[in-house]
Structures are given as C-alpha cells and as structure tokens.
C-alpha cells in the first residue's frame, strides 16, 4: 500500500509541473513567400522581438510560437489555419497580413473557439454587421489610412485631385475611403491591373489632367514601380503626392530618393514620439538589420497585448470570458501611444500624416508631419451588434 502511495505521489509530482509547464501556444499565419513576403516578415520579426524581450514568456508561462505561411492563397491559408486550431490546438491565432486571407481563415478559426488577432488586415465586413466577439484587429480598419489623406487634402483646400488605385476590392475601398472626408473635385480616377509594370500611360493621363494633388494606393512592388516612374516624369515638382501603403519602410529601401518628401498616412512611424518607441526601433534594427514598418510595430504590439492578457488572467486561459475581457481591456503600452478597442474589436487610435525622409545612416523612413485624427474609430462599428 505504501508503495502505491509513493508511486502515486511520484506520478502527481510528475503530472503537476507538466500542466504548469505547458506553454501558451500561439499560431501565426502571415504571408512569407512571393513578392509581398516582406510584410509578413516585418510582422513576424516584430512579434518575435517582443517575445525575446519578454524572455520567451507571456506572464510566467512559456510561449510556443508556430509560424505558418499563408502564401497569399486562400485555400492554403484555410488548411494552415485548420492545422493550427485542430492539430496544434493553439490558444491564439495571429493573422493575417492581407484582408482576403483573413476572410479565408476567419470562420475556421472563430468556429473552433480560438481567439483570432489580426496584426494587419482590417477589412470592413468584420468591423460591421459580421463582427465577432473572438476577433480583434490590433492594426486598424482598412479605410482609415486612406481617410487620413482625404481629410488632409480637404484641410489643405486642394480643389483638384487625381486618384489612382489597383483594380480590385481593396483598391476601390481605398478611393471610397479617400472620398469620405474629401469634398473637392476628383478630376479623374484611374484603375490599373494588380500586375501593372509600366505606369507611363497613367503618368501621361495625370499630366494631361493637371491636378493639384494625386492620391494613390499602390501597395508593394506596384508602389516601387509607380514612385520611380512618377519621379522620373518630373510631375512630382508640381503635383502633391498623397498615398496610403505606397511609401513605407517595406518599399523605401527600393524607392530611396525617388520617394523623398512624398506623403503617406498611418497610425505610426519609426520616429513617433511615444513611450518605448525609440527603444523598439533601435532594438529591431539591431536584431534584424532593417528599418521596421508599421507591420513590425503591429506584430510587436500583438505580442505585448497577449502578454498583458496572460498576466491579467493569471495564466489560466480556460476561462474564455475572462480572456476575452482581458483582450478588450487592452492593458498594454502600445508603441502607438493611445490605444483601446472599440465595441467591434477594432482599435480606437490616432492617425498621422507621414512624410518620407532620408536618415543620416543612409536609410529611409517616414516621419510624422501632423496628427490628422485623434482617438479615431471606424465608421462600421455602429453596425456591429456587440457591446
């Protein structure tokens, strides 16, 4: 009998630490291959940096990070998401970069009862009528960055503006977002295929329309090609260049001087004066050797948010209501400064007009010119039935 007691005690001794030692599992789905791989790389590296600074722990629990590549293919993203929630049984899914990838994984992840946090994508459907209590965008709502430029163009009193975007859903949303706060004349708007190589045709149209300002949404390689060609055309000297997701730290290494002085809009820049931001940028550049973009900041913030959640619930992730309340509380210091969650799980935060500058070390980054929106929520939150 005594023997059984000893064995039982030994088993208990083995079993207890096993539960306490079980790591918090985080599954990350971002796009890490193909031309837009840089965006996913920023988000992953930002998340990893936060994790390293936290000693590999959220609260006092170890963290196991499983990174999957969405490959910018909806079917692949769904498979990877299912594997994370079913096979790996993760506690949180962090994804995605692109809105169409988020659309693909949204249902499989939320149906499984796993919390989903987006480090970038913030499409309108999930902000409005289809909002979900287990989904949180740690980034922004997609329209907002475009609204920044529309508001700025309005405040500047630009009368004639030319709009240019790729011919797909996000491109049309972008121009709609710009027009939300802009009442001036849109002299012309042009849509180009996502695979456009040569913009000389559009540049000629812009020259013929002779606008005061140009607003473009040209993400990734599109932006590199467009900015270089626009600069070469000489139009930059007489047309103000306003943009969203076109000149940021993922594209500036290729745009360099061609983008100098061009305007963008966003919720953050490496030079933003907020607590801990300068330290973050320095640590990031030391660890990864490149200038972080907003995707890196959002990855970092997502990890810090999760750390605050695990701390708030004392490491007990089984009480889903408590975990959800802890996420909504957003009790962490965002690199953006002010940050809270709206009723729809999207952020309320400040937005800035940004301008491209050259740094003394030969790199390029965006700098804040002025604040455009203060504690700004998105226009879809009213349609969300959560409270």
């Amino acid at each position, binding site marked *: 009998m005594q023997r059984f007691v000893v064995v039982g005690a030994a088993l208990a001794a083995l079993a207890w630490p096993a539960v306490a030692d079980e790591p918090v599992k985080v599954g990350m789905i971002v796009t890490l*291959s*193909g*031309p*837009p*791989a*840089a965006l996913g*790389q920023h988000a992953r590296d930002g998340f990893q940096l936060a994790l390293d600074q936290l000693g590999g722990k959220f609260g006092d629990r170890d963290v196991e990070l499983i990174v999957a590549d969405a490959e910018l293919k909806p079917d692949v993203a769904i498979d990877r998401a299912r594997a994370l929630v079913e096979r790996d049984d993760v506690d949180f899914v962090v994804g995605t970069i692109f809105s169409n990838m988020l659309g693909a994984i949204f249902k499989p992840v939320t149906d499984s009862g796993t919390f989903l946090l987006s480090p970038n994508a913030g499409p309108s459907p999930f902000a409005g009528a289809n909002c979900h209590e287990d989904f949180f965008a740690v980034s922004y709502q997609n329209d907002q960055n475009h609204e920044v430029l529309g508001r700025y163009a309005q405040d500047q009193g630009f009368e004639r503006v030319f709009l240019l975007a790729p*011919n797909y859903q996000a491109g*049309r949303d972008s121009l709609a977002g710009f027009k939300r706060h802009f009442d001036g004349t849109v002299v*012309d*708007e*042009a*849509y*180009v*295929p996502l*695979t456009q*190589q*040569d913009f*000389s*045709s559009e*540049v*000629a*149209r812009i*020259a*013929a329309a*002779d606008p005061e300002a140009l607003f473009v949404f040209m993400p*990734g*390689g599109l932006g*590199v*090609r467009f900015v*270089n*060609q626009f600069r*070469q*055309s*000489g*139009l930059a000297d*007489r047309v103000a260049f306003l943009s969203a997701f076109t000149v940021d730290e*993922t*594209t500036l*290494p*290729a*745009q*360099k001087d*061609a983008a100098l002085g061009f305007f963008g809009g966003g919720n953050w820049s490496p030079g933003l004066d907020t607590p801990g931001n300068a330290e973050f940028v320095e640590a990031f550049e030391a660890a990864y050797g490149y200038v972080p973009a907003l995707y890196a900041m959002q990855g970092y913030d997502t990890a810090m948010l999760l750390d605050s959640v695990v701390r708030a619930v004392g490491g007990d992730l089984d009480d889903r209501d408590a975990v959800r309340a802890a996420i909504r509380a957003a009790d962490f210091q965002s690199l953006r400064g002010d940050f809270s969650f709206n009723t729809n799980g999207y952020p309320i935060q400040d937005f800035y007009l940004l301008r491209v500058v050259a740094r003394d070390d030969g790199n390029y980054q965006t700098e804040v010119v002025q604040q455009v929106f203060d504690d700004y929520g998105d226009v879809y939150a009213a349609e969300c039935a959560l409270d």
Partner: protein
Amino acid sequence: MSGTLLLVQVLNGLQLGVILFLVAAGLTLVFGVMGFINLAHGVQYMVGAYLTWQFHAWTGNFALGLALALVTALGLGLLLERLIFRQLYDRDHLDQVLATFGVILFVNEAVKVVWGPVPLSLAPPEWLAGSVTLVPGLLYPVYRFAVIGAGLLVALGLYLLVMRTRAGMLVRAGSTHPDVVAALGVDIRKLFMAVFGFGAMLAGFAGGLAAPLFAVQTGMGDDLLIVAFVVIVIGGIGSIRGAFVAALLVGLVDTVGRQLLTDGLRLALDPSSANQIGPALASMLVYVVMAVILAIRPTGLFAGKAA
C-alpha cells in the same frame, strides 16, 4: 485625347513592345525549333534583371553590369538546359509544363533567398538619365528612348542572324524539318542548346533593360510570360518576324487601347463606371485581338513562313 498624349502613349506602347519582343524571340525559337514549352522562360527575364542590379552594384557601371549579366544569363541558360531541360525534349508537353513550372517555383524562391523579398530598384545610367519635354509639364525619360532603340537594334541583328548566316539557316531548317537537318550531319542537340542559351540571353537582356524602368522583384517575369505567349501565338510559332510584329501590336493595343477604351466608354457611361469597366476590358483586349487573329489565321500571322 490630345495628339501629344497619343504620341506619348504610342511611345509607351513601342517600349512595352520591344521588351515583349526580346522575351518572345527566345520563347518562339525554343518552342518553334524544339517543340519545347518552356514556362521558365520568364524566370530568365527576372534573373537578367537581378544580375544587372548585382553587377551594377559591384562595378558601379550600368553598361558593364548589363554586359556581365548577359554573359552570366547565357551561362545560367546553358546550365539549366544541360541539367534539366535536356531531359525533357522527348517527353510530352504536359511533362514539360510541369517540370518547367517547378523551375519557376524553385528559381523564384532561390532569388528571394539570395536578394531578399523586398523589391530592388536600379537608377538608369547617368548619360541616359535626362528627360525630354513632350507634353508641357511631362518629361519623357531619355532612357525609355534608349530602350526602344536598343530593342529595335537587337531585332535587326536577329533578323540578319537568322536570315543571312549559316547558323540562322540551320535554325530555320531545324524548325520545320529537324529530321532532315539531323540526317545531313548536323548535331541537332548542339543546335538546340545554342538556340536555348541564346534565347535565355535575350530574355536576360530584356530584364536588364527593364530593371531601371520597373522594380526588380521575384515573380516579375511570370506576368510577362503570359503576354509573351500571346505574342508568339499571334505572330506564328517559330517566327522571329511574327514575334516582332506581334510584340509591337500587343504593346500598342495594350497601352493605347487602355486609354482609348476608357475615354470611349466615358462617352456612353458615367465616369466612375467607365473608370472601372475600362481597365477591366482593356486587360482583356490583347486576348480579344488574339482570338480575332486566330479566327482569321489559325496558325498566326507569319506561321509556316521561314522564321
């Protein structure tokens, strides 16, 4: 649309046309002469751009960088032919498509490993960096004229090479009667290899020329390849002259058509619908042109005629 704007768009169309021609020339030779479908041809274009960027970074001289890139692209083309494509000549087209598609995936990822996922950019050489004013306020870069000029020169050189030299004669003969050529004691494999390497070099040259115009990034050749296939189908498979005419046609239809179609739709529709429908229709335009040409001449414009 004003006359000057039309002139600018025609120039843009010509410039797209010559880049397309350089890619399509190699493709049509390889397809026509060897009956080999090489989806990985676009990869040669991308590699040419990356190599030009790299050699420019090392030497600081664009022309020298481009020349070194050409030699390296030729070497890489021959290496790929030796290692992979040679095994595929006798297989059916499906095997060729699968294998060369695999090469695309491999090379795209390999390029990303070496140069990173961020697009690279390359400034045009100093002596071509100026601009000309065509429309008041709009500068047209001299470099774009240089691209058009270089493309036309290469086209002329290719024409002379294929029509006036012994090697060109063998290529022409090999494309229509490979067995007879082989029976006459010509090493058809060696001929294939030379054609293949040459085609790879032309695509690399196009990539190098395009590098200062567009961003250098992974997958940059994949989109171009589809249009290049349209070009060789319109021109007639195996025909250099056809590829030249079709490339300029596709370049002009794509650029000028995009403008005319949007402007034309605006007469019938409100501007915002015209702006959305116009580009969608314009991107179909080259395929519509292809369909019409194939309906009239099912083998393409210049098929069956010597090269």
